[in-house]
């Protein structure tokens, strides 16, 4: 049949009235006053207004369609391929909904409630909990968390050929490191015993972890030229610990990630917890926190009677050799920019002692060598 030919307007069909599951054979006809459904003997059963007619299913493989009336349970099945064409011409609302949906107003109200709950959690409760972490997280839990994260970080940063001695434990190197830390630590007030571990990885980085733990990567020790540079970096990480930045970050990130997981359909939030571990590797604690840690480092060094100037020189050299954008790691990343940090630190009064003797410094440099 040519498409230009007008479709037939009356077709045989099967009709169920929406009250029982029986059906009868009817003739359906679309006209000006709507879709009329009549028994085969001509008795009219129903008349659906044209704007009430809905396509509820089809066309199926054979071209058959099923029609309904908006909001009603009655159904009319028509096998005639012409029917759909005719209805599309006459019934503008054919493909609209059956009208059994809840209104957008209800959706909007609950969207608002859900968003309010999420906003309260993300901007209110979670930051509050993070800022008061030391009051409700036990030191034991913090240490456990820190150890977990340290394992996780080591797994991803140590080259596979070094896996067997991921941690540098050369006895003389450790002793020298102890000498470097002791005067700085004396000025600190931490909850736990400070632990510093050296990781056998080329990364130019140092990380402060929950549970008063610092990871120093071999790459950083290789890069530093004198003990006070390293002392400054350690002081900076101790500053983060003193100000409880790592625990705050972990709570904030894991709480937020948990909620995002919940929105995306993860009822247990399991995917979020693993995510939080990587945050410490790739995120900076934020501009203000880094500046505060820098200031803390300078204070610690001065109180310990150490010369601060090399710490400033360290940033200047870092900027010259590696540039700002080249280092994808938190401690050294550009919050604030390295040249600014160098200037800030150099503004501190000059003078002070060397943190280690030359012999001890050589030992420390060789901390990753076998005993």
């Amino acid at each position: 049949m040519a498409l230009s030919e007008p479709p037939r307007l009356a077709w045989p069909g099967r009709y169920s009235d929406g009250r029982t599951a029986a059906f009868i054979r009817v003739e359906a006809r679309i006209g000006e006053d709507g879709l009329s459904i009549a028994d085969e003997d001509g008795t009219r059963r129903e008349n659906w207004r044209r704007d009430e007619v809905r396509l509820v299913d089809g066309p199926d493989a054979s071209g058959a369609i099923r029609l309904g009336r908006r909001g009603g349970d009655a159904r009319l099945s028509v096998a005639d391929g012409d029917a759909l064409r005719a209805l599309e011409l006459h019934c503008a609302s054919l493909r609209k909904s059956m009208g059994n949906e809840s209104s957008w107003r209800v959706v909007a109200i609950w969207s608002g409630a859900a968003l309010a709950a999420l906003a309260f959690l993300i901007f209110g409760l979670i930051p509050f909990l993070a800022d008061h972490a030391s009051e409700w997280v036990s030191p034991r839990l913090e240490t456990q968390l820190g150890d977990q994260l340290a394992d996780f970080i080591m797994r991803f940063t140590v080259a596979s050929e070094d896996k067997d001695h991921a941690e540098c434990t050369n006895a003389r190197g450790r002793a020298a490191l102890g000498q470097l830390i002791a005067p700085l630590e004396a000025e600190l007030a931490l909850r736990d015993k400070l632990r510093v571990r050296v990781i056998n990885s080329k990364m130019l980085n140092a990380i402060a972890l929950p549970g008063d733990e610092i990871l120093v990567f071999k790459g950083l020790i290789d890069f530093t030229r004198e003990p006070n540079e390293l002392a400054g970096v350690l002081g900076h990480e101790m500053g983060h610990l003193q100000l409880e930045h790592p625990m705050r970050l972990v709570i904030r990130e894991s709480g937020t990630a948990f909620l995002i997981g919940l929105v995306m359909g993860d009822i247990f939030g399991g995917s979020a917890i693993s995510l939080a571990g990587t945050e410490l590797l790739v995120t900076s604690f934020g501009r203000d926190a880094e500046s505060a840690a820098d200031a803390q480092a300078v204070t610690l060094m001065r109180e310990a009677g150490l010369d601060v100037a090399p710490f400033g020189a360290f940033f200047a050299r870092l900027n010259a050799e590696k540039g700002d954008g080249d280092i994808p790691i938190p401690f050294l990343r550009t919050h604030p920019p390295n040249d600014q940090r160098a200037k800030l630190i150099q503004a501190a009064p000059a003078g002070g002692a060397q943190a280690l003797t030359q012999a001890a410094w050589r030992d420390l440099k060789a901390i990753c060598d076998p005993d």
Partner: protein
Amino acid sequence: MAELTGVVGTAAHERVGYEGRRGLVGLLSKNYFLTLITIGIYRFWAATRLRRYLWSNIRIGGDGLEYTGTGRELFLGFLVALAVLAPLSIAYILAYRLSLGSPVLAASIQGVYFLALFIFMQVALFRSRRYRLSRTTWRGIYASQTGSTWHYCGLFLGYGLLTVVTLGVALPWMHVALARYKLNNTCFGNRSMHVEAKGSALFGRWLVVMAVIAIPLALAIVPNLSALLHPAYVDIAVTGKKSAAAAPKMLELPHPILLAIFPALSVILGVLALIWYRIEAFRYLASRVGLGTMQLNSDARGMIGVGQVLLFGLGMIGLSIAMGLVFAVLGVIAVPIVKAAIVGKTIAPQTIGLVAVAVMLPVYVILLWVIQLITYCWLWIPIIKHLATTLDITNFAAVSDIAQSTQPRQKLGIADSFELGAF
């Protein structure tokens, strides 16, 4: 108006049909990509579209089922659940962390929370079924589910405990008790389904499943038993920590090959056996369901499901080989370029990383898409089709006696928010 009488369904027997309409791949693809770019929010509309497709393909007496639920309803149910669940979860985390000073309190808070979450899941699954039935119509007549969610939860917990205590032996009784409760509370129009079923009828088949899982495990463990009872292993098993005494290496065991092969075999055979059992159990249960004077009968065969899982497994193996080839080609092309770039310092390391991500992300997205297509087209849909087309209804003429229920219809589908319900 005259009552509808006379012509009804055909003969005494009516076989359920499955139409297999075109457009499934397009539907699944659209669902997948829209869910991806809306970071998951589209999943409610995706589930609705898939259900509408499945329902309309199942045909009884010449008329397809109709799914009248909407994505908007599911989304609304999700919002309600989120507004309640999110603060509750955070409250739990807070309470748990606060109580860590006292291990007993912490453990009990954790226990209560996970029990609550577990019960919530059962509530959600039961209600999800109620929602789906309340959105299922045939010839304009709605299905529905009655019964008490808490009664169902009680059954679940009671039988669940029994199953755990008996190391899984009691599972058929649990399975049948829950199915019985669900089916006896399933209505079509004003008629309620009734089912007579006993757990003992499935026990033999369940024994097969347990044997299929246990025998390979026993074959792996028993010949190595003397070595596995080495104090170091016992220590690992009991305390979870390595003891000072060095555990024997894998190769020092008397029969390492058994320990390498049979546990994996146990898992593979176990999955096949479980699918087989589920379909066999479906046949048993479905064949005992009556609706008024109508009676269902199923000829579903568990081995069909096993075949389907094997086909699916072949598809996944093929996909893995294809992925291996893609990576090999990428590697052959990329490695020299990257090496040259690193040596010549023409590209910053970050750029290489970015390019790698830019290449890998589409590969990953396409991989997941293909996996989803294979899972539906070669596994779930064929099994659904088999279950539907082997279903037979006796005394189908009585269907015309069924009238619309006068009970109000359920409002929301809260459970569907967390992808707990299957279809």
